[in-house]
Each structure stands twice: as structure tokens, then as C-alpha cells.
């Protein structure tokens, strides 16, 4: 509506103080005001009279200005925004190496066969959809803790783990953050530099202070181990140290077993609490047990720890939002109390968690046949990623005559690779080559096919050498 017609409408309105209903109906809902207040009439109408009088018009005018005038547009999410940009690109050669969602060699999404089987089973059984308890599905909580620690682990046998189903990794991290805020006010969380982009948002919104520890060394495209240890040592006693259990996101760089030992040493020395984010169990090496090694190492030392889990990647259940927060305590009594408080935090967030994903996990892990099938499918997925890494490395070394060492591609593990490309170079990848990735230089190998490795190698070499 233009301003001239607005003023026309206004003059119409004021001319028709005792107007028929029809003028009012026309104005209703379409009167857009530039911001100044308008009053057509100062007379008071009896509020209990049912006639639709002119006073309604002034009221409509008065409340058109929103309470939320000052709300500005939020920036696009740096990770999820990449997929949106990719969708909008019409170039044939485009490649989406943004979000970490597994793709087949044909670059199609993949629903695991065990998941389809579990879903069909669930439909056949016709189970009800009643509310889960606040802590989630008991069968799921049992299998998820066992998967993480091993069923015969003392922490499980002694019932020292408080496990609460959460909304995948994000939701589980958020519950833990809320617990920290409530029971350790002022305590800091140390997060790796870099880390998954949403970690900071989670702690910010939960009002938990955080600081970074050195992690990625651009010179070696590897781990800055000394920096990491120094920063953990320098932090105030009793800080929470956020560690990626396996397949570090975004770098793909994991500590070696010896390095994990030293990390545990310094954490114990400083009385810190280890806080693991395990989003890729099984997806990193292909083995569920091996990928839980770091967590089990810490638990075996008798340490209390927090562990957030996700089944988004390893069971392909991205959209069902299924995960868990586990708190390992020194006593079963403490675990019971902690669990009750986690529930108290979840209730005003979403009351109780969604049932569907939990049932799928419980069915797959709880059935020996399905569990074995799952392990095979996971080895297949992890295997495809390893093959792609090899092919990319081979293409890069064959095409790049500068002698640069590309072996970090093989040393890194999991879905992601930190290419070492800076923001400008990453932009070049997108603008010139239609390769979509995040600005920190992270590529998701899950979105790469063997067929596209050569093209990607060309893009990386060009961006690395010709753009600064």
C-alpha cells in the first residue's frame, strides 16, 4: 500500500465516524501506518456495547505497531546456511561439502537398512505413542550407556551413570550446559580452537562462560599438543574441558592414545571435569568399541565425566533427534540425584523427548541380528570415507607439483577434513568452483564421491596456490 493511498484510507475513515460497517471491514487488517500514532476520535465508547463502531478503527490503528519492532534479521547459520546456498546454485559441477550428513557414492542420502527394518517392525507391532518419561525411553537409555562404556564396565555395573535421553547431540549438550550453569555457577567450559560452530551458541545461550584451548596447528595441519596441554593447565581449577571423543569436528584430528593419557593426567592434576562430545562413535574407525576408547580410558581412571552422544550420523537418524547425556559419578546415589536434576532441566524445555528415534535405536541395538547388521553398515560407511580420503590424497599428490605435503588428509579421521584453506580461499572454492564448504576450511568427506575427487583436487590446488 503506498503512502498516498494510506492517507486516502485515513481521510475516508475520519470522514466516516458514524460509517457503515463496510468501511470498517475494508480498513480492518489493511491499515498500515508509518509509525506515528493516529487517533480518529477521542470519545469513549461503552466497552460492553457490541456495535462495531469507529472506536474499533482507532484501536486497530493503535495496536498495529508490533512489540517486536526492534527484531533484526538473524545471520544465516554458518553451517546449515551452506546447504541453503548450495540448493540455490544451478551450476552442474556444484559439490556440497558443507553439512556433515553422510552421502552414498551417488551422493544420495542414505537410510540404513537396519533402520528401515526397525521402522517396519514398529509399524507392525502398532505400539502406542504415549509420552515417554522425562528421562526418555528406558530401553534406549540402557543400551546407549552400554554402547558407550561397554556392558561389563564397572560404571554400568555399579549404576554410577546418570543417563537421560536428549535431543541428539545438541540437546544433550544443552542439558549438560544447563546443569553446569545451575550447579557450578561461574565455572568455565574450555573448548577446542576450533570446534563445532554450535558449541559456543549452546554455552552462550545457557549462560556458561567459555574459553578456548589451542588445538589445531596450521603449520602442521595437525594437533598443537603442547599448546593444548598448556592451556588446560592454565585454566582455573575445576573447569570443564570439552573433548571430542573421536573424529574431531571440524579438523578430523584426534589425539593418539599416548596423548589421551597425558590429557587425562593434566585434567586430573587440575581437578577439571572431562566433558566428551561423542557424535561419531563407530563412524570414525568403523569400530564402535575403538571409537569409545578415549571415554573408556577416562572412566577407567575412576574419573567423573560428562558424555553427550548422538545417533544422527552413525545410525543416520539425523532428523529424529536422538542422543543422550551421560554423567558418570563416583556413587550410584550421586547418579540418581544428578539424573533427577537433569529431568528438572528438561521438563521446562520440552517436557519429554520424542519417542521415534529412541525406539529405533533400542530395537536395533537390542536385537543381535540387527545389531550385527548395523555394525556392518557402519563399517561400510566409514570404509567409503576412508577410500575417498585415499583417492583425494592420490589426486592431490599427482596434480600438485609444489611438493606440499597433503598427507594430513590421510592422518585425519572421520567425516571432516580441515584443508588448511583460509576464508578467502574457501570463498574461491565456492565462487569459482561451486564447491560448498564452511568458511573455516572444513570439508565434509561424507559429501564427496570417488568420481569427484579429481575435480575437488583441482579446486583445492587452485585455491591454495592462487588465492591468498
Amino acid at each position, binding site marked *: 500500500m503506498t503512502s498516498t493511498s494510506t492517507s486516502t484510507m485515513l481521510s475516508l475513515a475520519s470522514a466516516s465516524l458514524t460509517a457503515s460497517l463496510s468501511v470498517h471491514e475494508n480498513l480492518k*487488517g489493511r491499515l498500515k501506518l508509518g509509525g506515528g500514532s493516529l487517533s480518529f476520535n477521542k470519545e469513549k465508547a461503552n*466497552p460492553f456495547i457490541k456495535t462495531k463502531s469507529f472506536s*474499533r478503527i482507532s*484501536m486497530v490503528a493503535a*495496536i*498495529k*505497531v*508490533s512489540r*517486536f*519492532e526492534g*527484531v*533484526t*534479521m*538473524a545471520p544465516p*547459520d554458518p553451517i*546449515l546456511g551452506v546447504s541453503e546456498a548450495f540448493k540455490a546454485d544451478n551450476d552442474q559441477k556444484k559439490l556440497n561439502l558443507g553439512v556433515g550428513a553422510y552421502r552414498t557414492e551417488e551422493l544420495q*542420502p542414505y537410510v540404513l537398512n537396519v533402520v528401515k527394518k526397525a521402522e517396519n517392525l*514398529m*509399524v507392525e507391532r*502398532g505400539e502406542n*505413542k*504415549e*509420552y515417554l*518419561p*522425562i528421562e526418555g525411553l528406558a530401553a534406549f537409555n540402557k543400551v546407549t550407556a552400554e554402547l558407550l562404556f561397554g556392558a561389563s564396565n564397572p560404571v554400568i555395573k555399579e549404576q554410577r551413570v546418570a543417563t537421560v535421553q536428549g*535431543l541428539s547431540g545438541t*540437546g544433550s549438550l*544443552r542439558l549438560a550446559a544447563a546443569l553446569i550453569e545451575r550447579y557450578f555457577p561461574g565455572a568455565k567450559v574450555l573448548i577446542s580452537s576450533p570446534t563445532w560452530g554450535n558449541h559456543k551458541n549452546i554455552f552462550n*545461550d545457557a549462560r556458561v562462560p567459555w574459553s578456548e584451548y589451542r588445538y589445531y596447528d596450521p603449520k602442521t595441519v595437525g594437533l598443537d599438543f603442547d599448546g593444548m596441554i598448556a592451556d588446560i593447565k592454565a585454566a582455573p581449577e575445576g573447569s570443564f574441558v570439552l573433548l571430542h571423543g573421536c573424529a574431531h569436528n571440524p579438523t578430523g584430528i584426534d589425539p593418539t*592414545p599416548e596423548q589421551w*593419557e597425558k590429557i587425562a593426567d593434566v585434567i*586430573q592434576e587440575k581437578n577439571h571435569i572431562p566433558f566428551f562430545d561423542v557424535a561419531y562413535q563407530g563412524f570414525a574407525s568403523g569400530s564402535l568399541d*575403538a571409537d569409545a*576408547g578415549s571415554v573408556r*580410558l577416562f572412566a*577407567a*581412571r*575412576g*574419573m*567423573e565425566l560428562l558424555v553427550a552422544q548422538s545417533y544422527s550420523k552413525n545410525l543416520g537418524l539425523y*532428523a*529424529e*533427534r536422538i542422543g543422550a547425556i551421560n554423567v558418570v*559419578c*563416583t556413587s550410584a546415589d*550421586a547418579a540418581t*540425584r*544428578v539424573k533427577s*536434576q537433569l529431568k528438572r*532441566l528438561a*521438563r*521446562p*524445555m*520440552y*517436557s*519429554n523427548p*520424542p*519417542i*521415534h*528415534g529412541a525406539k529405533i535405536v533400542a530395537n536395533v541395538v537390542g536385537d543381535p541380528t540387527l545389531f550385527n547388521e548395523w555394525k556392518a553398515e557402519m563399517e561400510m560407511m566409514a570404509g567409503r570415507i576412508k577410500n575417498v580420503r585415499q583417492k583425494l590424497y592420490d589426486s592431490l599428490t599427482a596434480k600438485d607439483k609444489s611438493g606440499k605435503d597433503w598427507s594430513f588428509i590421510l592422518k585425519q579421521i572421520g567425516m571432516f577434513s580441515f584443508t588448511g584453506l583460509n576464508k578467502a580461499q574457501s570463498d574461491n572454492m565456492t565462487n569459482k568452483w561451486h564447491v560448498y564448504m564452511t568458511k573455516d576450511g572444513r570439508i565434509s568427506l561424507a559429501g564427496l564421491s570417488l568420481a569427484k575427487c579429481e575435480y575437488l583436487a583441482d579446486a583445492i590446488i587452485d585455491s591454495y596456490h592462487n588465492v591468498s
Partner: protein
Amino acid sequence: MAFRAVMSRRVTNRSSDIGARWMSTWWGNVEPAAKDPILGVTEAFLADPSPSKVNVGVGAYRDDNGKPVVLECVREAERRIAGHSNMEYLPMGGSVKMVEETLKLAYGENSEFIKDKRIAAVQSLSGTGACRLFADFQKRFRPDSQIYIPVPTWANHHNIWRDAQVPQRTFHYYLPETRGLDFASLMDDIKNAPNGSFFLLHACAHNPTGVDPTEEQWREMSYQFKAKGHFAFFDMAYQGFASGDPERDAKSIRIFLEDGHLIGIAQSYAKNMGLYGQRVGCLSVLCEDEKQAVAVKSQLQQLARPMYSNPPLHGALIVSTILGDPELKNLWLKEVKVMADRIIGMRTALRENLEKLGSPLSWEHITNQIGMFCYSGLTPEQVDRLTSEFHIYLTRNGRISMAGITTGNVGYLANAINEVSKSA
């Protein structure tokens, strides 16, 4: 393999001496949380071995055999989507299709606001998640505001706005003497609140009282809201479930929309589609124009991202499958009416039974009230007697979940209520 060997060697050397050092715990100051007053009732019920036990606690629908119900339209939708080929993350704002259909239910099939794209809307974790997102949004963008909450209300409302750190005030709602609406005090509270206050309103089937304003009373409230410039946030958890007719149950919202209010709405499919455990709902905020709606939606997504990244798919797929298919939608409307009618029938039966027993008290309110709950007017002590003597489980505020009443147990329930209340 090598990693594992290294691990086991290290573990045996170190665990014994280190373990001893760690008998103390980080969690010494963590007290056990109080049991949730509502969900705790069901836990106690399940633990009771008595064969005549009755659960009229939690608000989940039961059929006349006391069994949970999965609607036929839901089963059919599930058959269609089982083993489907896509589990990719939903966008942060959830399923677009589901949100579109959900807005039509609240705002009207042909709503001009939908056409003009003036509604910022995101899929939410059922009603709880919608309220929480709104509370967080309110805190972030109107940090000086507070929320007026009716007395009484669903207990979790207090938890939600408290954890979002939005200060709470209350307004009069229930009048114990009449077991009805305290309309005069309610209107006073609206008038006395500072201009531009935020109010939480139950769109229909007030929880826990079952007491709803009449259409006339809604119109008066709307008028007074305009005079004061208040913001109306509607929690609509029972659309279709109250009267059996979704359009009718949305009347309060439509009145406010007609009067030009820019409102917010939390919607849930937990009860009216029986999707309790799926956690599917929607938060919407009506804005001045499309541009503002886009901005507000982006900020709602920004709040959701560090809470759960994006909402669960399954329930949303069920909803959009049903509402997007005219046949399934009609089936749903029929099934919702069946549920609502059964509840209305049980209200009548309970009241008649009590009157037949010659109870000296008035039980009119049972049939005056609407929706899943009835505020019986029983005292906590009388409730305790119902539980300890008769194995009847309900919350101590005297709230009875009508959905737990069947033709099989209504006589027993009436008798028990009469026993504990006849000397009152």
C-alpha cells in the same frame, strides 16, 4: 587393535591408585529434585497393585476400556511413511508443510495473515517447546517484560518462564466458590497491569480447571487488551478436543485476530492427534508485515539451534501426511469428535452418578467445564483419601482427568468422591 592393547595395559597400571583418590564427587551439592507433581502421579499409580485402581492423573486420552488410543488416521499415515527414503535434517524451522497446515488450523483456512505471509512460525517440541521458545524470545527481545500467568495454570508454565528468566506475575482466573471464572477480578487485573504487558491465555479447555470464558467474555477481554496495549500469547493444546470442533475451539484466537491484535500462539498435536510422545507442535507470532515475520522467524531459529538444532521429523511427517490428504483429514476430524464426545459423555455420567447418590454438594461445574480436565473442588486432604482409601490417582489440586474415566469406573469414582466429600 593396537589402540585397544595400549589401553588395557595402561588401565591395569593406573586405575587402582588413581581410583582411590577419586572417592569424592563433584556432585555432592546436588539434591534430589522434587517429583514432578503431574507425572509423579502416574508413577505412583503404576506402582499400586490394587485391581480397582483408577488413574485420573495425567492428561492423556484413554478409550472406554481405559486404553491409550492411536488414531486410525495416524496408523494409516505411519504405514505410508514407514521405511521412507529420507531422514535428512529438517530445516531449523522444521517441516514447512506441517507448519503451513498447522497455521490454517489456528488462523483459519483462508486467513489473510497467511496469504500476506505475516506469520513467523516454526515447528516446535510440542506445546512445551513452543512456550519455551516464545519465553526465550520474549527474554531476548523484550528483556524488561514480564509474563502474566493465570491462577491456576498448568504447573510447567511456571517452570518454563522461570528457566527462561522472565519474571512472572499472576492474574485472577478461577473462583473456587463458583468453580467457575472469576471474571470481575480477571478484568481488574487486565486493567491494572501496566500498559503493554504480556499475558498467557489458554485458548480453550483451560488446564487444570476446564473453565473457559464465554464468547462475550473473550470479546470484552480483547477490548480491554486493546485499551491497554497488552500482548496476548495463546497456549492452545486442545484444539478440537474441547468441543469436538476445531473451528469452534479456536474462537478466542479468532476474536483477538479480528480485533487486530498481533498475537503469539503455541499449538500442540499431543492430545488432538494423540501424538504425545512424538513432540510435535508449532510456535507462531503474528507480525506487522512479511519483512518483520522473516526477521522474527530467523531469531526463533537462532534460539532453537543451541537447544536442539532442528526439530524431530517423524511426528511432523505424520501431521503433514494427515492434514495434506483430504480423506485422512476428514478421518481425523471424525476421530477428534469421537474423543471429545466421549469426554463430554463421561462428564454427564459423573455428574448424574453423584446426584443420584444424593450428594449434598453441587456438581454442575462438571458439565459446565470443558476439555480433558475437571477442577473438582476437592481439597488436598480429600484427594489423599481418594488415593489411600480408594486407589484413585489424581493431582492434589483436585484436578480430574476426564479421559481416565470409563463407563466401567465412573460409578466407583462417583461413590468414592461422594464418600470423601459428603461431610464437607
